[in-house]
């Protein structure tokens, strides 16, 4: 029997504010599903509604064939790993992990506690108190305390948010391993695009209480559906363009007086006003003397900023029409990075382009879709 988690037309309003807006999504059984979005996009509210900690304004939530919409949190076969861990400070680790089992009348808990501590690699911690543990250890215990109940869905509310970067990477790998091992559906809420892409089978990008795009990480990254997604998951260069015609399987586009090509298969919109997009790491730089491949899309510009980041160098260049474009160049070859002020030609292979709809009324400005909508990126 399938126990997919199904949210149907779920809406949540707090007073006049709509936190979650008519959201419908199916989380397949056994998947690692990430809800990705900036703070305030409704992702945590969605999670809390699944947990039963928040009532729905309208809509329904089903788990397999069972409607759990109105069920009290303690009657739902779901458990949560809280952002703050919320370990019970008056209980030792063993009793924390056994809490859910004991409430359901399970008697012999010692063996299960031991198994869980093995799973999260903290064997022998039964008698310690939560305050004696580091943040990363508390996080693992919070995970063990939820998993020991063998829920049908495990909800993770930014569980790694309080950890430092290195520990976070380690825990991401750990979480993925544990999910594969136990095979339970993980519904993971995060604002960290890397985390979502690294761990999840399916990522749902949320914005303003709605899901903007849903799919495997590669699909969302390589073929974003909206300007928001293209700049929330990684960065994109977007150029205001018009479709000029078709040539075989390609679209011919004009933007700022120049001609570009993009495969029709990578276009969400095939006529009229569009955004032409390309990821910074797909773009190469050529000096004016050098030949850029003739079939590549090309943009001339002047470098305004060079940022050496070890594995790559990030360039900003200014196009003749005044737009900024970013280019990531892998530091694979020897040689000095180019200096600001250099005239260059940025070029990319047309199949790396993607084309998005640009409804009338939307200006040529892309700043509204600027990268780093959270303002938290380093």
């Amino acid at each position, binding site marked *: 029997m399938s126990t997919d988690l199904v949210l149907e037309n779920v809406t949540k309003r707090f007073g006049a504010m709509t936190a979650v807006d008519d959201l419908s999504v199916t989380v397949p059984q056994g998947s690692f599903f990430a809800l990705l979005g900036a703070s305030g996009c409704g992702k945590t509210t969605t999670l809390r509604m699944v947990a*039963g*900690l928040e009532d729905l304004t309208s809509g329904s939530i089903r788990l397999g064939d069972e409607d759990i919409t109105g069920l009290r949190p*303690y009657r739902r076969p779901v458990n949560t790993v*809280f952002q703050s861990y*919320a370990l*019970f400070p*008056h209980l030792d680790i063993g009793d924390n992990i056994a*809490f859910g089992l004991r409430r359901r009348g399970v008697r012999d808990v010692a063996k299960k506690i031991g198994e869980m501590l093995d799973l999260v690699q903290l064997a022998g911690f039964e008698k310690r108190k939560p305050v004696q543990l580091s943040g990363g250890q508390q996080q693992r215990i919070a995970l063990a305390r*939820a998993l020991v109940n063998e829920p049908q869905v495990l909800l993770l509310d930014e569980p790694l948010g309080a950890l430092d970067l290195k520990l976070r990477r380690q825990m991401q790998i750990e979480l993925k391993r544990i999910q594969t091992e136990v095979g339970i559906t993980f519904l993971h809420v995060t604002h960290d695009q890397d985390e979502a892409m690294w761990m999840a089978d399916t990522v749902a990008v949320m914005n303003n209480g709605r899901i903007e795009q849903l799919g495997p990480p590669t699909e969302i990254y390589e073929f974003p559906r909206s300007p928001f997604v293209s700049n929330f998951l990684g960065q994109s260069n977007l150029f205001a363009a018009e479709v000029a015609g078709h040539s075989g399987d390609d679209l011919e586009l004009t933007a700022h007086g120049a001609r570009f090509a993009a495969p029709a298969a990578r276009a969400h919109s095939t006529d009229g006003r569009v955004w032409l997009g390309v990821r910074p790491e797909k773009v190469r730089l050529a000096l004016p003397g050098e030949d850029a491949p003739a079939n590549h899309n090309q943009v001339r510009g002047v470098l305004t900023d060079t940022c050496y980041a070890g594995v790559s160098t990030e360039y900003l260049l200014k196009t003749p029409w005044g737009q900024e474009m970013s280019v990531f160049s892998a530091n694979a070859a020897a040689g000095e990075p180019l200096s600001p002020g250099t005239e260059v030609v940025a070029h990319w292979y047309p199949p790396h382009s993607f084309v998005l709809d640009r409804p009338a009324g939307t200006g040529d400005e892309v700043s509204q879709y600027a990268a780093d909508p959270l303002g938290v990126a380093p």
Partner: protein
Amino acid sequence: MTALIGAAAGTGPPTGAEPPPPGPRRRRWIPYLLLLPGGVWLLLFFVVPLVQLAGTSLYDRAGSLELGYSQTFAFGNFVDAITAYWPQLLRSAVYAGIATVICLVLGYPLAYAIAQKSGRWRNLLLVCVIAPFFTTFLVRTLAWKAILSDNGSVAGFFRSLPFVPDDFRLLATPVAVVCGLVYNFLPFMVLPLYASLERLDGRLLEASRDLYATPSATFRKVTLPLSMPGVVAGTLLTFIPAAGDFINAELLGTPNEYMIGNVIDSAFLVRLDYPQAAALSFLLMATILVMVFTYVRRAGTDEVV
């Protein structure tokens, strides 16, 4: 050897080798300075009188204020005091115990509501809890005398019930004394409870609900254990003064309801039997200490005391 040491000393930087004394070490006297005023106060007005009281409790009871007392280490004073006044001592413990339990039953939900559910009314409600203190203890207790009086509406209401005899009265009964104790000491229960419930992390309650705990299980396994420091503090702050109280028994009871405080009061001020009064004071103190220690042990929070 000398050359080695000299060489070693010579290689080191001349002054920088000695680290400057860390700040906290130089200020080690500050905690003692902070303790000083309170310490002196307690020494003068608690320790010295206590020792004096201990001495007084062992005086020969044949003496008097006019003739003077002689120190005979009359431990018999304690035996006499227990023999004569054990009912009052027991009554003090029982009345104070009942009053404390009632205060806990009334105070816990009140403190919980103020701490967790009152929102913007919180401060107003807290003021209401403390408001009775704006009137003197004596007047408030006298007001209870009026409330519980035979002609009052409360007693009248009870008399109007079937199966309640016509000579039913509230004033001058144990019920009246316990009522007075509960009323007067309730804030001492509510405030520490409020302080511990206010700190209770709502996320722990959510975690409990998420982990299959019904509301009652959440209360028993999370809320109550985490508020135990407040329960212990409130219980002690209520029980200790209630056990030594004499105003309530004096104003709302009869000699049949007198507590040990009344006996000490009359021994000191009416009978002028200072040795016995002092012995009774020590007995009261010992009783309370024994009960408190037993209780704190049972409550499992030795850290509190």
